[in-house]
Structures are given as C-alpha cells and as structure tokens.
C-alpha cells in the first residue's frame, strides 16, 4: 500500500499578526511555526494505516526551507520519507496551484491513499484536498472523523453539522481530508526523532511541478476593524475578579446585588 500525506506549516494562531509590506499577506518574520492542526490528524491516520498494512508512507510539504522542521516532526511520527517542494513563494499560490503541484507530484506514483487536512489554519480554504482528487480522477471524502480499512474498501464517517455523521464507503484509490478529533496524534519519541534525522528528505524545485496558472489573487490583507467594542480589563487577578463581579451585578441579572 502506497500512502501520501500532505502537510502545511502554519504560524501559531496565538501570534500577534502584522500585515507585510506588500499588503497582501501576513508578516512572517517573527512567527513561531508549527504543523497545521488538521494535518496532524492526517499524519497520525497515515502512520496507523502504514502500520496496519505494512505500507510505504511519504509526507509532502510545499514551502521555503523552514518547512523542513515541520516535516521532521512528521518523519518522527512515522512517515518513511519526505518530499519537500521548495517554494519560497508558496504563500502567494492559490488553492488550485497548490492542488496542481501535489497532483503533479502524485501523478506517476500510484498512491492508494492520500490524506490532507480538511483545511489550513491560516487560509482556511478547504479546497486543496478535493482539487487534488479531481485532478487525479480519484474519489475524495472530506471532513472525516473515522477511518477503517477492510480489504480495498474504506469505511469512513464524515462529520456534518450538529454532531451528526454520514457513514460512507469508498474503494481505493481515494483521498481523504481529515477533521479535528479523527484520532489522537502521537508525540514523537526521542528515539524516533533521532531515527527521523536519517530518513530521506528530498527537495524538489517548485518549477518542476507547477504547470498551471493561478485563478485567484489576494488584493489586500487587513486586520479586521474592531466592531465588538467590549470592555477590556487588565491587571492583577484578584482586582480583576472584583471588577468583574461589580460588572456582572450591574449589567446582568445573574448575581444578587
């Protein structure tokens, strides 16, 4: 069984974001980077599937050199090799270009299963996985919270609104986009981190794989205007608690005066 998992490196969402000088993306200079949360579930599912089938697992990531750090985590979690698509301009690419790069990479490799996150935490387009499947002409099931392989059939649960799930089955090859809570992503152990250093991490220039033109461009990126205008309280915990109790007494009926 040949498995591919696609991951993205994203900034920590608790960062204080600034707009870059071009005004079309966030400033990347002082950010802490990590694996897109949705992709952690993808990597875990891919590693479990590899363990179940004795398969071969490749992790792919598009981005500048720094994304190799995130790829090393995926290798330490159990991926066999990394394919780093070296692309300093990855942030300007639209979902169609990203999907086309991945599909071009995968086109001659005969993957039975491809995992992606259901979306990235920074862009949140939720398009790339589905576009890859359409480009490769294989079925895709999105937003999965359960994955069971039986023979060449996969039974999955798709998460719908309100906690309802749709049970669907699909015959491989197929692509799956992973939702939060699909499994419990493992923490890489120290021996596995050491082993991961010796695993193959191939770099491919993006020019070798990018053969389409973009369809979407960012005109501008902005911080949202503050509409909320709620009260912001700062200071010592005890004083804050006193202040909040006073406010709750004045503004709500939930505390006796």
């Amino acid at each position: 069984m040949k498995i591919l998992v696609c991951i993205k490196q994203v900034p920590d969402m608790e960062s204080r974001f600034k707009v870059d000088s071009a005004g079309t993306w966030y400033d990347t200079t002082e950010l802490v980077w990590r694996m897109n949360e949705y992709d952690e579930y993808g990597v875990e599912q891919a590693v479990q599937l590899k363990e179940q089938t004795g398969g071969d697992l490749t992790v792919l990531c598009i981005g500048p050199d720094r994304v190799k750090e995130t790829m090393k985590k995926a290798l330490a979690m159990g991926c066999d090799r990394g394919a780093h698509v070296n692309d300093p301009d990855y942030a300007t690419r639209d979902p169609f270009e990203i999907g086309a790069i991945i599909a071009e990479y995968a086109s001659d490799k005969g993957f039975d299963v491809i995992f992606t996150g259901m979306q990235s935490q920074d862009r949140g387009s939720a398009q790339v996985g589905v576009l890859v499947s359409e480009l490769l002409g294989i079925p895709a099931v999105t937003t999965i919270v359960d994955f069971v392989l039986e023979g060449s059939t996969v039974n999955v649960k798709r998460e719908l609104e309100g906690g309802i799930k749709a049970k669907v089955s699909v015959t491989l090859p197929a692509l799956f986009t992973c939702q939060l809570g699909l499994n419990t992503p493992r923490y890489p152990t120290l021996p596995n981190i050491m082993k991961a250093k010796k695993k193959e991490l191939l770099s491919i220039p993006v020019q070798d794989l990018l053969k389409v033109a973009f369809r979407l461009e960012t005109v501008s990126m902005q911080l949202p205007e503050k509409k909320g205008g709620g009260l912001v309280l700062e200071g010592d915990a005890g004083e804050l608690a006193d202040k909040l109790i006073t406010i709750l007494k004045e503004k709500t009926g939930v505390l006796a005066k």
Partner: protein
Amino acid sequence: MKALLIAESREGKVLGSCSELVAFAQKAGSDSVMFMVGTDSNLPAYDGTIYLADAAKYGEYNPAVHKQLILDVVTKEKPDMIVFSHSSYGWDLAPRVAFALEAAQFSEVADIVDGDPVVPACNSKLRRRLKAKSTVKVLTLQAGAFSLAEPITASPNVEKIDTDTAGKVTFLGYEEAPKGGVDLGKAAIIVSAGRGVGGKDNIPMVAALAKALGGEYGASRPVVDAEWVEHARQVGTTGQTVSPKLYVACGISGAIQHLAGMKKSEFIVAINTDKDAPIGEVADVLVVADVKQFLPALTERLQAG
C-alpha cells in the same frame, strides 16, 4: 449578474442556511435561480425558480451526482456565480464544481466590499480581499454572515431535473450525535473550558466556577476531542447552540465554529491571555488574564458572597 444558489436539504428537510444564500444575492445586487436535491413537499421559501432533483431517486449526498446535476443547470442558466454555504455540504461540493468549470473559488466569504469578496484568515485575526481571474466564480458563504432583513414567504416555481451519473462514494446512513448527559440548552449560565485551560486537571476549576455561579459548564471542541469533557457539553457548530443569560469563555480563542454556538448569549465574558483573541469581537467583557489564576480568584469571591 446571475447567481445560482445551492440550497441544502438532508433527509427531506431544507436546511436553514438557504435564506443566507438569498440574502447574499440581494446584497450583491444579483438575479438568482436556486438548485436543490430534495423533495417538493419541503421547499425553501424563495421568490424564483428552483431546479429540483428528487432526493428519493438520488439518495443523500453523493458528490459526483450532485456535481453533475449542478453542471447541467449551469449549462442551461449560465450564471456568473455559483453560491454555496460554507458547510460540510458546500465545502465538499464547491471545489468539485469550480474545478469542472475552471472557476476560481472564494471560500467562507464573510462580506463583499466594493464588489470583492472578503474572507477570514488565521482564525479571523486577519481578513483577505480577493479577486478572481475566471469569469465564472464559485463562492461558499460563512455561516451567519448574510441575513435577510425581511423573511421570505414566497414559494418557488419548481423545475424538475435529472441525471444518470453514478458516483464512486456510497452513502451508508447517518449516525446521530451521542444522546444523553447534560442539556446545556436549559442552562441560564454557562462557563466553558477551552484549550487554554491547559489540561484535564484544570476542568474542575471551570466546573467550580460554574457551580459558584449556579450554572453548567461547557467546552470548546479540542477539549472534547481530547476527552477532558464529554461531547454533550460541546458548544459550537458540531455541538450545542446555546443562548444563556451569561456565557463565560475560559481560554477559548473564538473560532467561527465556536462563536456560531454561543454568540447569541445575552452577556459574554471572555478570559484569555491573548488580548487579540477573536473572542474579543463578541465579548462584552474581555478579561486579559491566565485562567489558572483568575478562575480560582473569582470562584473564591463568589463563594464568599
């Protein structure tokens, strides 16, 4: 301009977000027609033509079949925009339709500014204004971003449609959300734990505050996924929708899917170390503090009366 609005129905029932599609078309100043796979005994309120494929024939959601049905309507109507809700149906189907039409897709559109769609980035801490290269555009709309000033009462004019496409994905059935446990809908006060509470060991701290206030405790999704708290207590799109008198969000960033479940609360207090956390947008009071220090201090004072 003409928009094709993709309405949703599940097990024969129209989903509520259909009116948001109509509200969007109004705001964009666009004519529209509608599409739905459903039944003619349960149609959305709409003043126009709906292309209806019979759910009794096609069953529940099947990506390849629904895609083909939509493409047939596109050929006939030649819309400039195809508009979905950003839902488990919309984000699954929209990229397939966009791909077939070589169209650009705007995901989770929250607004239209000077004709350009605006979408969130980085958990709504940033916004992006986008432009498409293609003439036909596909959009998915953020839940709750567009709403009608006046509810529609009209019934649509129905045109039946058909296809013989088959899909490769087989629908086997639905699984209901686990039942039982607490009913957050009845609580007048809810104190919710987010990932920022730091661990399962700190849940009692949140429960203690809920108790001191005479309410129930809830949670954000990661807290439920990590099994610190049971699913019945999850607030948000894939959990409960609540509107208590007081909602206290402890270490919750305010992702759109969480906000969808609690933003109608009468009074919202957020406790967060990050002053920029998007929960600040809906909070009446944002307490910038570490929950581990602030919660015990607050509970102690409330207990002291």
